[in-house]
């Protein structure tokens, strides 16, 4: 999963800080709970918003995740960073909420995939994208566009793309989180990327202003 770039010493220091905070939490120190919530709720809300389209759902999910975490503190063994542990809990909460929600009417992934002629050649010419794609992403509007297009993917594909490419869980972890096979993860990831590529194509090859 998403791993912050830290040196070995920084990593050790983080674990020491985590251990001290967890000890205070287990001792029931009110101030420690508030510190934990204030420190980690921002990144947890950002994660919840990636998975859930409704702000209300995202807020509720963060609350559920913290309550789960508080009650499971005894099981936090310090093998991962506290932030990593909380990240997984909020991802789980968000996925559970997505499963519970009635499935919205979604586009078929098939209509978003690249089309080919019967001889295997592309149905449309493949045009290169602008060379300044990275520069374009410096504009907040362009980043918002990419997020909007990810949101257009059908949920079974969108969740795999988020877990693999954005949250950086590996194939096995993603399969566990979604309770599907590793082969299904690979297939969905590939289709999600193909569909997203198609959705972004008109914008990054410069056809649409």
């Amino acid at each position, binding site marked *: 999963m*998403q791993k912050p770039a830290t040196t070995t010493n920084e990593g050790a220091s983080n674990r020491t800080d985590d251990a001290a905070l967890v000890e205070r939490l287990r001792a029931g120190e009110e101030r420690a*709970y*508030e510190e934990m*919530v*204030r420190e980690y709720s*921002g*990144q947890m*809300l*950002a994660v919840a918003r990636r998975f859930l389209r409704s702000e209300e759902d995202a*807020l509720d999910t*963060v*609350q559920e995740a*913290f*309550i*789960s*975490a*508080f*009650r*499971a503190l005894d*099981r*936090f063994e310090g093998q*991962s960073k506290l932030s*990593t*542990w909380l990240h*997984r*809990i909020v991802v*789980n*909460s968000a996925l*559970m909420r997505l499963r519970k929600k009635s499935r919205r009417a979604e586009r078929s992934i098939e209509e978003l995939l*690249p089309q*080919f002629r019967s001889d*295997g*050649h*592309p149905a449309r*010419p*493949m045009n*290169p*994208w602008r060379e300044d*794609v990275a520069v374009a*992403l410096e504009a*907040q509007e362009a*980043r*918002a*566009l*990419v*997020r909007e297009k*990810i949101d257009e993917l059908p949920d079974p594909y969108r969740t795999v*793309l*988020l877990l693999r490419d*954005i949250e950086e869980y590996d194939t096995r*972890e993603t399969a566990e989180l979604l309770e599907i096979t590793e082969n299904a993860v*690979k297939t969905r990831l*590939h289709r999600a*990327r*193909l569909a*997203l*590529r198609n959705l*972004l*194509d008109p914008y*990054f090859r410069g056809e649409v202003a």
Partner: protein
Amino acid sequence: MTCQEIAEFLLAYLERELPEPQRDVFQAHLDECPACVTFLRTYESTIRLGKAACRDCPEATKAKVPDALIQAILAARTTGHEQPQNETSDDS
């Protein structure tokens, strides 16, 4: 190998999961087909764009949390809010 098959096996190629003979055929097609090279590059750009838009920018990584949410979380802890079923072990 057709362009359609290139698109189909792109992930396996990029993750080096294609067996050697198939990889050679794949590579031979890329050497001859600029359209598929373009397709591969835009596929890789798509991955980078997703990361840049959802992870590597401030508005997507740390949200401003309403104080009401923080207070609700702290209050829920002391009032024993119903616990959602969740995976909470860090031993995996």
